[in-house]
């Protein structure tokens, strides 16, 4: 039997089930927390940190990612206080430079969130890779499709996504299921690129082998 838990989110007493995350508990009660790397079909990943909330536990305050932090008995959560909003604004300011220069026609979830949090423009240097490395595509391909046709390569600021040359040609063009999960236009833009990437196959496949 799964035990019931009660916690306080934004001042409201909330009942949750053991094993739920703060995000799930909040969602179930209609409390909205912004997310970018979270997707119900996938294992929580905790990478974008946009879902950051502040918790009070044993008298100590601390910021945590609500999509991975377990809801616990007696926990107090503030999902939208000043500190949390500051962190979210900064994260959005770091994400905007990754997008291609703004156009009037296309606005994705990141731009929408930025607007909501009052971030008109980022102070930081543009680095328009068009990929926020949320891993939706990679994780969907591994966890749901079990095809492993796309992966991460490199680490640190050099991390990027790459199609696996031996697998992508057979899977990706026909599948394309991850495309709609992408919060940017990266996936759509790379349709033609799949073949291009594959023709550069050797170095990438070497890198992948090194990783596993």
């Amino acid at each position, binding site marked *: 039997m799964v035990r019931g838990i009660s916690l306080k989110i934004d001042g409201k007493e909330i009942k949750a089930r053991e094993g739920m995350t703060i995000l799930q508990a909040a969602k179930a009660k209609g409390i909205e927390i912004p997310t970018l790397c979270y997707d119900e079909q996938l294992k929580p990943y905790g*990478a974008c*940190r946009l879902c950051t909330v502040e918790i009070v536990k044993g008298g100590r305050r601390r910021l945590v990612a609500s999509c991975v*932090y377990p809801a616990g008995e007696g926990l107090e959560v503030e999902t939208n206080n000043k500190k949390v909003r500051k962190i979210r604004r*900064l994260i959005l300011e*770091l994400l905007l*430079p990754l997008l291609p220069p703004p156009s009037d026609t296309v606005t994705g979830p990141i731009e929408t969130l930025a607007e909501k949090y009052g971030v008109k423009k980022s102070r930081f240097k543009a680095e328009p890779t068009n990929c926020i*490395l949320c891993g939706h595509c990679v994780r969907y391909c591994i966890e749901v499709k079990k095809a492993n046709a796309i992966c991460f390569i490199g*680490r*640190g*600021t050099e991390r990027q996504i790459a199609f696996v040359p031996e697998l992508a040609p057979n899977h990706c063009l026909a599948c394309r299921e991850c495309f709609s999960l992408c919060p940017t236009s990266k996936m759509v833009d790379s349709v033609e690129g799949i073949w291009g990437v594959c023709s550069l196959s050797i170095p990438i496949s070497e890198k992948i082998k090194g990783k596993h």
Partner: protein
Amino acid sequence: MVKKIRSLAELEKLRSEIIARRDPKRKIITVCASTGCSALGARKVIESLKEEVKKRGLCGQVGIKEDEVEIKETGCLGFCELGPRVIVYPGEVPYFRVKPEDVSKIVSETVVKGKIVEHLRYADPVTGEKAWKLGDIPFYKHQLRLLLKNNALINPKKIEDYIALGGYKALGKVLFQMAPEQVMREIKKSNLRGRGGGGFPTGRKWETTRNAPGEPKYVIVNCDEGDPGAFMDRSLMEGNPHSVLEGLIIGSYAIGANEGFVYVREEYPLAVENITTAIKQAEDYGLLGGNIMDSGFNFGIKVHRGAGAFVSGESSALMAAIEGKVGEPRPKYIHTAVKGLWERPSCLNNVETWANVPLIILNGADWFRDIGTKNSSGTKIFSLVGKVNNTGLVEVPMGITLRDLIFKIGGGIRDGKKFKAVQTGGPSGGFIPEKYLDLLIDFDELTKVGSMMGSGGVIVMDEDTCIVDVTRYYIDFLSKESCGKCVPCREGLRQILSILNRICSGLSEEEDFKNLEDLSELLKEASLCALGTTAANPVVTSLTHFRGEYEAHIREKRCPAKACRALVAHYIQPEKCQACMACSRSCPVDAITGDKDTVHVIDQEKCIKCGACYEECQFNAIEKISPPTPPPPRYGIKVTRKKKRE
């Protein structure tokens, strides 16, 4: 095949047998064969010693008694920049930078006659004071080498050497005389804290794993050691692997684990080799494996080689790597001690943490707590590097001051320069300025001033170091060595690096102070793992303690240390130039013009600021000017001859 040890008494019997086989008057020539000295030519020294000793008939017979002279190839002895290192026993006579041609004198004088070879004798680089014994050398005199001392007495490939010095006694004591709970209590009472960085109380971690639900439980050794320039863990693994193993076995008994892993970075082949040999030998003697010493306790160890990335040392990343997954951190709001390797309770400790365990068991928790400070007991190994006279591995009691570490053991700043800052704790440690030099080295004290113990890197910087420039170096390292998974760390570091690059190139604005502060806060508060939450330490501490230096760069486009190329110009002072032409010959881009008896002039347009001329000029006529606005060039001035007037 050796006989398995099946009781405490059998272990003691073996120990006496090993000791009895050895002639107490036997001379020992210890040569460091670790990675450091090998790189400096230790192999050749060892070969020459073997030849020399053989030539003199001092060894060669294999019988009941071992050779009259033993050449012991050991692990790291500590004063690494002066390698290859040799110590002759009895007498503990140290020799440094030994070359194959020194060997015959060392054997004929010191080994045979017990005299020191005068011209090879150690002299302090600052005071010139000479030393007879190892313990007389200032570098060693102020250390307390509890973990490292046996490195000089043990051939790491021979378990017998370790046993002769009391090895595995603590294991025997634990297995036959203590209940697991008692062992746990002893470690808790000792106040041992993790040496891998965080300083987490070891006993508490053990208890968490012991009490966590789920079987099997695992114990793990962390030898990733990704900090650039750090090698304390390597030196223990290479030099005294059994001390780590014994600690691990004791821990597994206390925790109730039957399986353990040793994670070693691939870049440490000798450490892998020595720990693998040690495991094999311990198994042969029945000190490891099934039914250890006939006590009924089983414990097996596997060695896992990891591709050494800095982030792989983080506990959840390390465990992912052992599981065969990509070694990147995962959110661990549930500790790895509860849910670690394959979701099972897993206790991960650093190499040095494990190596402390047998000492605590043998000497007692109270003995250990008497060393160090109230909150940090025992000793800590540091890798002391940078602009100090003596560099290398040192082991000191916790609570020694930074000043003593740098000036007494390190021998002060090189070339009589002024101290500027010391950075502790690896790339994500903080800079500590002069006003805190009397700070006691202790987990909590270092954290209070914005730095940390980390795994024990200590980098000393002098007045010629530009703090903004070194900060940039660390941020560059961290931005490349993070895993790149979470946004605050990956993108935050990317932007901090870009801002620091601008500052060092004179392209920054006043807003950059706030930008750096905001990003540092984001990293600290919102990153996924401890790499990210600590990565801003160099930025925050340099902004706090050396703000003036940032102001000079940002507001005046000036680098006070004259280290940032873009902010420095080279200028030949007309009154000092002797027209020797050394500078113009050294300039790779022919930017310097001048004739015989005519003051030389640097063409600032052409100059690439490599500094070759600055190094070359014997008359100190070349000056670095920051901001880079030298006086307008004047050609054809005749030189002023200074020397002739004297």
